[in-house]
């Protein structure tokens, strides 16, 4: 039995490998599917639903759904763009995202996703929740105002760092990233070299004293939309 699986995304035939998710196969083929909680090197989690596609007519998270022979996937449609815009707008209003002074601005995946989806301002009312900042650690800052609960830090700390620094606590609107200690991050074995710090898509987990090093205009998403690197692969393949 061959390991190659042929399916289509927006009518374009794509070859993937058995066991790949829609998102992985699309990435390899140079088709960008927007995502916020998925991250290479981390196990799929399916939290944010920004990667929602229609797979054989049903909404599915592309980052968790395996590909199947003959599967028909819709990705870049008006309907799905609206779903993604709505999700990203909800993320903006349910946290406190002050881009104008955030160290992550320009390199932030949430912000870049809003740019790519063409959001000038969210249509939902701002909730302005009260959230905490944990600056107890000498080298690391946790700003819960910006956390989008993607669980990348939770997964990376466990699976890449072999620690267990971060875990979710609480439910619903009270859900937040907790640290594996009585009170503060400084009481954990978190270290400035932890991979968990590299994966946060927003400015919720930051290394101290390195912010604003890259000037405006040279940051990751200043000139090109998020996903351009993946799409460039396809342009290369077509040549």
């Amino acid at each position, binding site marked *: 039995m061959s390991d190659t699986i042929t399916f289509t995304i927006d009518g374009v035939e794509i070859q993937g490998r058995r066991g790949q998710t829609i998102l992985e196969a699309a990435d390899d083929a140079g088709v960008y599917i927007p995502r916020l909680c998925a991250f290479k090197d981390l196990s799929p989690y399916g939290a944010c639903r920004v990667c929602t596609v229609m797979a054989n007519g049903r909404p599915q998270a592309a980052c968790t759904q395996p590909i199947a022979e003959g599967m028909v996937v819709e990705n870049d449609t008006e309907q799905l763009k609206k779903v993604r815009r709505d999700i990203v707008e909800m993320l903006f209003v349910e946290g406190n995202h002050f881009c104008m002074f955030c160290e992550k*601005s320009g390199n932030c995946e949430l912000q870049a996703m809003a740019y790519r989806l063409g959001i000038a*301002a969210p249509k939902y009312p701002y909730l302005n929740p009260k*959230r905490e900042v944990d600056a107890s650690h000498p080298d690391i800052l946790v700003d819960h105002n910006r956390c989008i609960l993607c669980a990348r830090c939770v997964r990376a700390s466990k699976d890449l760092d072999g620690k267990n620094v971060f875990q979710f606590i609480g439910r619903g609107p009270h859900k937040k990233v907790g640290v594996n200690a009585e009170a503060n991050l400084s009481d954990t074995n978190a270290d400035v070299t932890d991979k968990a710090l590299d994966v946060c898509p927003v400015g919720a987990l930051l290394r101290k004293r390195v912010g604003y090093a890259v000037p405006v205009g040279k940051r990751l998403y200043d000139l090109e939309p998020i996903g351009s690197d993946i799409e460039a692969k396809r342009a290369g393949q077509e040549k």
Partner: protein
Amino acid sequence: MAKPKVATTSLAGCFGCHMSLLDIDDRILKLVELIDFDKSPINDIKKFTGRCAVGLIEGGCCNEENVRVLQDFRNHCAILISVGDCATMGGIPALRNNIPLQECYDEAYKNGPSVHNPSGQIPNDPELPLLLDKVFPCHEVVKIDYHLPGCPPPADTLWEALVALLTDKPVDLPYTLIKYD
């Protein structure tokens, strides 16, 4: 034919967005060929003289006067644009939104580290507009037609959007001109 009129105002903003508008440099000469400024801090006209084609709003609403001015703009302007992060999402003033108003007053007038106020009085003159319980982005108060985020939005963003609107073209700005910082 009379030139279309443009009005501008700064609500709970820092005037940075108006500075950015002035940053269009010599294009301001082209701009005054295209439009006349009506009520605006740029010419210091305090009251609307008539209907305007475009109103530019800097800043969100932090007090009752902001709300009145914003409603006045909505009543006089065919197209209303939220300019800058304060107008589109509250901006820096909205940092107080999860702090009770009384605590804000106490910090500003009684307990702040640089405050000297032995009588402990909080300003309460009837001339002073009352603060709202939180800072609202403009579109949570009146209908807003376009949003130009940024802190401030680049001069090119303001220029491109204005020229498109005044020449009846779609406001379709390039990727680099819609940014939140």
